[in-house]
């Protein structure tokens, strides 16, 4: 296993955001974590990349226990992340942003730079534009390209489709498949579950800080409960049809951040069934 997440608990103050998450990512896979706002997806990624400390549990990466490794060292170990909200450096140009991605490395990065520009021709056109003045889709490309500059073994992607038009979403997802095809393992967090399940090999369903289901992605696409809760509801849902996803995208693309989520998660608490009914998912969206 490349990445093993072992019963991790994470707290924001006294509020538990993760209540014992276990997951594994094997080399070459695309694994996705799906779930509603506040399920703990972003917190899981941030804990893997070292931005959040563990309360208990452990994380092993490439055979090494990295639970106590400081965040800034995990990049060199091989963990690259495109964070939620993209985290582009607004005052740096596209190229400076990309070079920041190789900050931890030594040597010449022209090869990686060329590779990123080949994957994202749009970035090549805008080398000297400040990151802060780019559109949402361009910033997402920049964030992914920047993470690739570190030559990560595993690429953590946090909501790459957030706030993007359906056409751009398709484009970003096909690039993710291409990145994986070229040999980078991907751990993908998404609210756009149907898209994520279509490109992933395996998936974990998260619900208020716990894993409630894990299965090959294709199986989850057919799972009636998952369909009801995350794929736009019921039998009439045609998985993968962009027309059907658009309204959900719009509902989920709001500014709600998972940082605020533990409040909502704690409020809905333990009473919720393992896989929630569609109505509750909508409530969750409104409350955050």
């Amino acid at each position, binding site marked *: 296993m490349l990445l093993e997440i072992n019963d991790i608990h994470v707290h924001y103050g006294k509020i538990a955001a993760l209540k014992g998450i276990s997951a594994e990512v094997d080399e070459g896979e695309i694994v996705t974590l799906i779930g509603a706002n506040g399920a703990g997806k972003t917190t899981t990624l941030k804990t893997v*990349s*070292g*931005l959040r400390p563990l309360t208990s549990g452990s994380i092993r990466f490439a055979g090494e226990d990295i639970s106590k490794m*400081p*965040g*800034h*060292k995990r*990049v*060199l170990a091989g963990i*690259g*992340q495109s*964070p939620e909200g993209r*985290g*582009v*450096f*607004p*005052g*740096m140009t596209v190229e*400076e942003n990309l*070079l*920041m*991605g190789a*900050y*931890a490395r030594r040597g010449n990065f022209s090869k990686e730079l060329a590779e990123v520009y080949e994957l994202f021709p749009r970035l090549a056109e805008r080398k000297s534009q*400040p990151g*802060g*003045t780019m559109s949402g889709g361009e910033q997402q490309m920049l964030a992914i390209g*920047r*993470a690739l500059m*570190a030559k990560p073994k595993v690429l953590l992607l946090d909501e790459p489709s957030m706030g993007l038009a359906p056409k751009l979403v398709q484009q970003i997802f096909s690039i993710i498949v291409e990145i994986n095809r070229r040999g980078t393992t991907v751990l993908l967090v998404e609210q756009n579950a149907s898209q994520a399940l279509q490109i992933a090999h395996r998936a974990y369903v998260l619900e208020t800080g716990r894993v409630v289901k894990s299965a090959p992605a294709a199986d989850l696409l057919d799972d009636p409960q998952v369909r009801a809760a995350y794929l736009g509801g019921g039998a009439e849902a045609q998985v993968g049809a962009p027309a059907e996803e658009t309204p959900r995208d719009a509902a989920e693309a709001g500014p709600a951040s998972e940082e605020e989520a533990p409040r909502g998660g704690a409020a809905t608490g333990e009473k919720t069934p393992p896989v929630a009914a569609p109505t509750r998912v909508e409530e969750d969206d409104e409350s955050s």
Partner: protein
Amino acid sequence: MFSDFIHQFWPSTIDGLSLGAVYALVALGYTMVYGVLRLINFAHADIFMVGTFAAMWTVKTMGVSDLGGLALVGAILLSALVAGAVSGGGAVLLELLAYRPLRKRGASRLAALISAIGASIVIEQLFATIVVPQVFDLPKEKGKIAQAYHFVHRTDLIDIGPIKIANDRLIIFLGAIMIMIALDQFVNRTKLGRGIRATAQDPESAVLMGVNIDRVVTATFLVGGVMAGAAAALYYARFEEAWYFSGFLLGIKAFTAAVLGGIGNIRGALVGGVALGLFESYGSSLFGSQWKDVVAFSVLILVLMFRPTGILGESLQQARA
């Protein structure tokens, strides 16, 4: 009143520029720490004050007096090096003792701010009660200005019609410019400089890039402290006095300069510093020197009323939100 101003225009401009350059150097320390930690480091004023004593100590130890020409340049350079080292070290120590423990425990920004005020008082009183009487053998009375070591022989170096530039003013201004160029190179050309910029723009992303935030914070305090120390040596060359409380007003003015230029913005600190120096100097020649602070701070209020983010306010900050 106005004829005084016309008559005094060139001397005021030159005074304003050289004083403004000193404000700018100190303002850079405020603005850089704010950029990285979103903290107003109120004890930065006292890091400057420590620098003035280090400069005085250097002059005292050299035992020189009445210097001019290249000897003066050398003496100021040496005192700037000593003061820069002392203030830089002091700033790093300040961060380690007063801010880092709070940061590691995830304390609020308000707690760090209170700690800054506390650290400021501690440094001042340490100097008033121990350093001034024991190291400099100067009177114990706290209010007394520790001034004793004069070393500058002032001459007009440049004399073109109404424009007369004294040697000390010129050295101060050129010295400050050189330090600013060095800072610009450091921030824009070095790896650590890029780390500082990245941390200021998005600390979490910076960690994801492999930036060691602790090292960035230490470097920021070190650079800010060195600049405050160098500024203190230039200030000492002009006023030849050191006082345990001298950081207070100068610190407020430098902080004002940082806000005036747009806090968090390095170029803003330069613009704000020079602008404040000029306002103060012109205000003093227009209304009399007792009014100079009134004029300077009134201009601050006016600027902030119309441009709340300062002259070069962080428009990028808004782009991010």
